[in-house]
């Protein structure tokens, strides 16, 4: 073969491929001193990018708890898998598409949804629910509206067409995302427990099959783009954005499901970021195999494509499959029925090398294991974060509660997200038992009386103020949301969005947040089964708020034991459970930010033992059938939660027995708390039993009327509804 590179690699090439000088030295070592050619350099750059290699985060990710008796497959595969009983498994993962969505919001977000769907159905699961966790800049920033409009319609455009309901998510606004929005998409799928497909290739000689869409010049170098900071010139990187084709994705799902029902597949993987390179490389690497591909056989959309372009293309809606011997024709028929491209592009070898041929010539010959082994892993220096002082309630302005409540209900971070979710088909598949707007989304397991509960959460302002507590809080909030509908939280996926890890203070955020997440997972018996890391979320040196988004999944064994947050009936007693003392934590609260215009202080600490005790108790109460409504307390504290319950049930409430000072009691964001309602006649017994179980409880009022009443004052629900429902549509009305 001819190893002589057609073109010598220049320092400029090394730089544009995102490799450091040290990394390039390693490249030469792996190659035994030989210089790579451009195809090979491209492959190194992709495989060693932050996106594919996790080189800055790996050391810390390894510390996360990933095991439990119900975990079938933890991190490392395309998605994580848990056992949910009755022979079924739930498969899920969350992934970011931040940079592409900033450059082209519609297509960036759409292809983000497409990518995460493929990660899930490649394992044999039919996707049953999508979620989306979004962070945008200041609503007043000139770009924000355009980005919100584009991202939301892109997520809808893709998910609606594919026919998977988008059942929930979250939206935050903060100036730190002005130049760097976050678009994190999560998919949950269902599979037969004994029919899960993995990606490790096996069997020398087995055919390597390419299915789906043709390869074009889309997104070449997207993976390296996702691993570098933005600067003023980022707009020039535009041509790398891919266009999604949800119609083809829908066909691809159906075709793959049909093939999976046969016994033809040895292993399978989607072509995600860095397409053909990472899929073929990872499959071979995991199985300890070699692979030889004929680049001429790759279905191509454009003329004159080079192997370099084909290997680095990020064209969407493509999968790589290793078939069992002799199954080519069976598989070909299925893909042709669905009018998708199908091509045998190579075979597995036992050489342990990745060999690419083009017009009969070898254009790449890399040793797979050494390349993977030498993949950089950094122990980047990090700085412990500075602890913020605790903010005393007496030092915070005590604004009349009615004014504060009105401000909060209509503020960008609390206002109803109806404008968003109405653009998503959240009902297709006819199993959405709890639609968006509640605590966790509840999606029935088709044909049964069981359901999955799903929630995504993160409070970035807490994480910024204290990454460790913030990491714990993000996990705890999903756990609480899942608990609040009556489900048993089982496992999480995470999407760690941070700035530049080469800055020690950012690396410190990463390290501490991961420690917090890990501690919470251990305490709540709630392992991490999949995840994704997105670093370098900075613009002109300014980082985003650290945003480790968590997606949690739980199980409702009996849908008849589910509850919702809406107030149900006049006269029912309102109980506050889990309030440890009467302090009322205002540091980093929305009250402080939205009403007093201050972002400061330590965030509310999460007492994990307390969290667990209260949550387990509340879940038991829900299952006992005594609870008529349940809602966890989060952003905006007690008063915002009560208002949400009132608006959902279109019933007001009369409050009493609220501690002083009022602003701290009503708007403090202490963790580990729930509001429940019970029939008036059950109130005393429930309170006593709760206290006897060691869970703090008190009655704070009763459901009734058409307003929120407190201390001789009241606010009409209709006024609150206008504020809550009004902000988003009014804001977006002037969007272009």
């Amino acid at each position: 073969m001819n190893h002589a590179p057609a073109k010598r690699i220049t320092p400029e090439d090394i730089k544009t491929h995102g490799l450091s000088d040290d990394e390039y030295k390693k490249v030469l070592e792996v190659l035994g001193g030989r210089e790579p050619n451009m195809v090979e350099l491209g492959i190194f750059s992709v495989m060693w990018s932050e996106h594919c290699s996790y080189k800055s985060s790996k050391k810390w990710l390894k510390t996360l708890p990933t095991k439990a008796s119900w975990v079938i497959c933890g991190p490392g595969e395309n998605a994580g898998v848990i056992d949910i009983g009755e022979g079924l498994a739930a498969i899920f993962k969350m992934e970011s598409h931040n940079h592409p969505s900033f450059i082209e919001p519609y297509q960036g977000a759409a292809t983000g949804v497409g990518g995460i769907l493929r990660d899930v159905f490649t394992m044999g699961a039919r996707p049953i629910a999508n979620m989306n966790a979004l962070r945008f800049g200041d609503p007043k920033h000139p770009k924000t509206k355009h980005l919100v409009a584009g991202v939301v319609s892109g997520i809808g455009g893709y998910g609606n067409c594919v026919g998977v309901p988008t059942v929930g998510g979250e939206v935050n606004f903060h100036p730190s995302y002005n130049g760097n929005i976050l678009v994190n998409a999560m998919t949950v799928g269902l599979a037969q427990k004994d029919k899960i497909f993995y990606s490790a290739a096996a069997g020398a000689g087995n055919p390597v099959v390419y299915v789906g869409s043709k390869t074009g010049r889309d997104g070449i170098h997207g993976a390296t783009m996702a691993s570098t900071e933005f600067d003023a010139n980022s707009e020039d990187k535009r041509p790398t954005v891919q266009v999604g084709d949800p119609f083809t994705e829908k066909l691809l799902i159906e075709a793959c499901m049909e093939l999976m029902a046969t016994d033809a597949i040895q292993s399978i993987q989607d072509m995600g970021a860095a397409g053909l390179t990472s899929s073929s490389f990872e499959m071979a690497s995991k199985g300890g195999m070699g692979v030889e591909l004929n680049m001429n056989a790759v279905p191509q959309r454009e003329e004159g494509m080079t192997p370099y372009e084909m290997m680095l293309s990020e064209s969407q809606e493509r999968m790589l499959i290793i078939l069992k011997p002799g199954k080519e024709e069976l598989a070909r028929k299925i893909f042709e029925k669905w009018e998708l491209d199908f091509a045998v592009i190579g075979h597995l070898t036992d050489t342990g090398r990745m060999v690419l041929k083009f017009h009969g010539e070898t254009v790449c010959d890399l040793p797979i294991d050494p390349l993977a082994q030498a993949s950089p892993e950094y122990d980047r220096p990090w700085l412990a974060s500075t602890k913020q002082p605790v903010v005393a309630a007496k030092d915070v302005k005590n604004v009349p509660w009615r004014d504060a409540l009105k401000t909060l209900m209509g503020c960008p971070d609390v206002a109803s997200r109806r404008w968003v979710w109405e653009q998503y088909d959240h009902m297709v598949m006819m199993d959405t038992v709890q639609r968006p707007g509640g605590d966790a989304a509840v999606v029935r397991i088709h044909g049964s009386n069981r359901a999955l509960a799903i929630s995504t959460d993160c409070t970035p302002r807490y994480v910024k103020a204290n990454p460790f507590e913030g990491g714990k809080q993000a996990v705890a909030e999903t756990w609480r949301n899942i608990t609040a509908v009556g489900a048993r939280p089982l496992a999480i996926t995470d999407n760690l969005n941070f700035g530049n890890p080469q800055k020690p203070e950012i690396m410190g955020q990463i390290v501490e947040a991961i420690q917090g997440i890990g501690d919470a997972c251990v305490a709540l018996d709630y392992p991490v089964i999949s995840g994704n890391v997105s670093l370098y979320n900075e613009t002109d040196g300014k980082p985003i708020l650290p945003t480790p988004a968590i997606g949690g999944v739980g199980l409702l064994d009996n849908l008849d034991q589910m509850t919702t947050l809406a107030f149900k009936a006049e006269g029912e007693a309102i109980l506050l459970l889990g309030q440890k003392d009467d302090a009322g934590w205002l540091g980093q609260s929305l009250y402080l930010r939205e009403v007093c215009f201050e972002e400061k202080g330590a965030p509310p600490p999460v007492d994990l033992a307390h969290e667990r005790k209260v949550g387990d108790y509340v879940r038991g109460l829900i299952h006992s059938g005594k609870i008529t409504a349940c809602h966890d307390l989060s952003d905006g504290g007690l008063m915002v939660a009560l208002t949400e319950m009132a608006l959902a049930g279109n019933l007001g409430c009369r409050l009493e027995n609220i501690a002083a000072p009022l602003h701290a009691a009503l708007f403090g964001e202490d963790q580990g708390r729930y509001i429940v309602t019970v029939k008036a006649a059950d109130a005393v017994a429930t309170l006593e039993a709760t206290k006897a179980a060691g869970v703090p409880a008190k009655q704070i009022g009763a459901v009734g009327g058409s307003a929120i009443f407190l201390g001789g004052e009241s606010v009409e629900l209709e006024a609150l509804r206008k504020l809550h429902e009004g902000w988003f549509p009014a804001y977006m009305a002037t969007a272009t």
Partner: protein
Amino acid sequence: MRAAVIVFPGSNCDRDIAVALEQSIGKPTTMIWHQDTDIPSDLDLIVVPGGFSYGDYLRCGAMAAHSPVMREVKRRAEKGMRVLAVCNGFQIVTEAGLLPGVLMRNRGLKYVCKDVHLRVEDSQSAFTAKYKVGDVLRIPIGHAEGNYFADEATLKQLEDEGRVAFRYCTTKGEITDDANPNGSQRNIAGVLNKARTVLGMMPHPERLADKKLGGTDGRAMFEALVETLA
């Protein structure tokens, strides 16, 4: 009653409507892949389901309307077989000329998924026999192109012949502009053909035919079909 659901590439409510039908019929419906043109001869009902046939590219429903299977559906429909066309199905049958009018982009330009209220305007068809004129139903929509448009003459004919099956209305049954989710002319949500054997509607009756999903107003449509066509 024997029912079948057509499946186009990109259909995605095919299973949903089959589930709703089976609840009422008590036996499985046949799924017909768009390329299988020999439709069983003893069918009483064909459903053209919702979704994004052919990706909704070009115009919603256009490519499906011109597929071979639709020629057969049209032939059967002309002979009186019932056709229920929901959402994308409605777009397909209008493109195919089985029903008049077109479904244009929503006036708000956005996809809208939510419950809406429908006033029943007809109870004289196999689809609507279990409703009373004036009933207000809560049924979900999920579409970006549901804005019903027809020329004045067509609208007049539809009205004169009582072929408007449903109109978008308020919870109290008033036909107002605010209750119109997509800009449809005269708040039209569903129309019948002259023989009242083909119903096209944008809202999804199958999506609220199960108590667990929060409502059952759609169920009477499937029950009416079973009773009428039994």
